[in-house]
């Protein structure tokens, strides 16, 4: 049985641990401290926690000011209200002056579920990736979330960490190395390269097992850092298979798929490519797993796409 844990719980715990080690770490939230789990930090370090109320734009500005005076702020809310509502504050008050602010948002993607489209950020990776000086990390499970938090605190400059809401399978190990900007091959194969990010990494691994049973040998690569993108590894892997599938819980416009395509095209790499993601539409209310299925973000659909790709080339 796979162990399960919500990445956002891991975020809350990691933040407390980080706070124990580094007293410059402060946390900010916008009336979602229990949902994002920054409340754990708030209980442990009362003086270093600031709840700004329902005022995300102001929160980003306050985080900028704290960082200017030497603190390492972690600002949290839902992905839509961080990357979305406060986009321009992040751009002009954090990224442009290259401030040391960490934006750790939860509830990325459609696995927000029942709250529906207004609360499901499916364009945040694209938005955050477009900002100069920004580092963008999308951890695939609870263990990787914790490592991302520590790694983000270790580097100087703005970092966006997109954290998933639901309880999700743990697919990495404590002892695995995590380095910002270094993608990880989780399974080697020779027929098709599947690049996935966030919760979709587990779906890709699941798909690879089924594909294996059907005689298709897939490589699965965890792109936990969308920016800076591990171009070398992408080129190396695609050179082996010439067949690329990207999977992301995000619009196919501007996210992981776009980032990978940009690299392949610009380096003149010839490959068949298919982006699996949300196809230029909004999300909706529903059970998270049902929604993933609806938008083609299931292991089953990855298998289907991979099979079609391999068939076509035979």
């Amino acid at each position, binding site marked *: 049985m796979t162990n399960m844990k919500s990445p956002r719980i891991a975020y809350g715990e990691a933040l407390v641990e980080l706070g124990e080690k580094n007293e410059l770490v402060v946390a900010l*939230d916008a*009336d*979602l*401290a*229990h*949902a994002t789990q920054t*409340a754990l930090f708030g209980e442990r370090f009362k003086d270093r926690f600031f*709840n*700004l*109320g*329902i*005022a995300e*734009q*102001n929160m980003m500005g306050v985080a900028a000011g704290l960082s200017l005076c030497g603190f390492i702020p972690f600002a949290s809310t839902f992905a*839509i*209200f961080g990357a*979305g*509502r406060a986009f321009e504050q992040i751009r002009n008050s954090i990224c442009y002056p290259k401030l040391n602010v960490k934006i750790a948002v939860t509830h990325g993607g459609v696995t927000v*579920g*029942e*709250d*529906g*489209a*207004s*609360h499901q950020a499916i364009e945040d990776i694209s938005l955050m990736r477009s900002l100069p000086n920004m580092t963008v990390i999308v951890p695939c499970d609870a263990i990787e979330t914790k490592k991302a938090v520590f790694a983000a605190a270790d580097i100087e400059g703005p970092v966006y960490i997109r954290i998933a809401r639901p309880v999700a399978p743990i697919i990495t190990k404590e002892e695995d190395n995590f380095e910002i900007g270094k993608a990880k091959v989780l399974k080697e194969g020779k027929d098709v390269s599947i690049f996935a990010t966030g919760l979709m990494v587990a779906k890709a691994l699941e798909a690879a097992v089924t594909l294996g049973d059907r005689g298709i040998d897939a490589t699965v690569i965890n792109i936990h850092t969308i920016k800076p993108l591990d171009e070398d590894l992408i080129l190396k892997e695609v050179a082996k298979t010439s067949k690329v599938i990207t999977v992301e819980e995000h619009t196919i416009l501007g996210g992981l798929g776009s980032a990978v395509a940009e690299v392949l095209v610009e380096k003149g790499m010839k490959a068949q490519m298919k982006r699996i993601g949300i196809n230029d539409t909004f999300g*909706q*209310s*529903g*059970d998270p797993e*049902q*929604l993933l299925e*609806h938008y083609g973000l299931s292991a089953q659909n990855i298998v289907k796409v991979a099979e079609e790709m391999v068939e076509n080339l035979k």
Partner: protein
Amino acid sequence: MSVSRQTIEELQSKARIIRRHIVEMIAEAGSGHPGGSLSSADIVTALYFHVMNVDPKNPKWPERDRLVLSKGHAAPVVYAALAEKGFFPKEELLKLRKTGAMLQGHPDMKATPGLDMTTGSLGQGLSAANGMALAAKLDNKDYRVYVIMGDGEIQEGQIWEAAMTAAHYKLDNLTAFVDHNGLQIDGPITKVMSPESIQEKFKAFGWNVIDIDGHDIQQILEAVEEAKTVKGKPTVIVSKTVKGKGVPFMENQVGWHGKAPTLDQAKEALEIL
């Protein structure tokens, strides 16, 4: 004002029906926001069943009065009212938040007949209401625009940009409610980020301010009538309410902001309602 005792009683019993729907639909959905839906129930009932001129047969009727539920998480209260009005079959209520449902977790005007605006991201509704009120003036129409905001929601800066706009353009065809239940998600509003004094702030922004008990139908109706007579400025009705009103174990409990009752708890609530 001449509202008969009978009208008030009818509205009170309608509000009870709305509250029952709220509890049932959220319990059935297994998620949702009972606290803030229940606290707005009397205001929404008064608006839809006495004040607002709307036509369930013609939801897009250009002359209709409009309601923007700026605190979109309270969608169930408006869904219940729209179903009771006949905008769509009541069976839809029990499909709330399910995949493919007409009733989304937060108001989606493209999905639900009778909704005047899509909301859910707090702080944005008053601006849209301003636009509708400006349009009425441009078109020389006499429909009125109503908007309901949360007392936590008004921490958003956009609310105050919009408050400035409404006064600047003298939008006397706009009436706003603040559902002043004193709670948001992370605790009491005064502990998290105090927006007090709400009344003084709106006054300073150039609004006509009326204070009422937001569960007293008579006071709600009188305030709305007074707002219609005030010329040259928008009116805000600061409505003192109880979050979770009507369900004793939910009343004033911050934990019931965004949690569904179990089927047993719903049964207990329905016995009282």
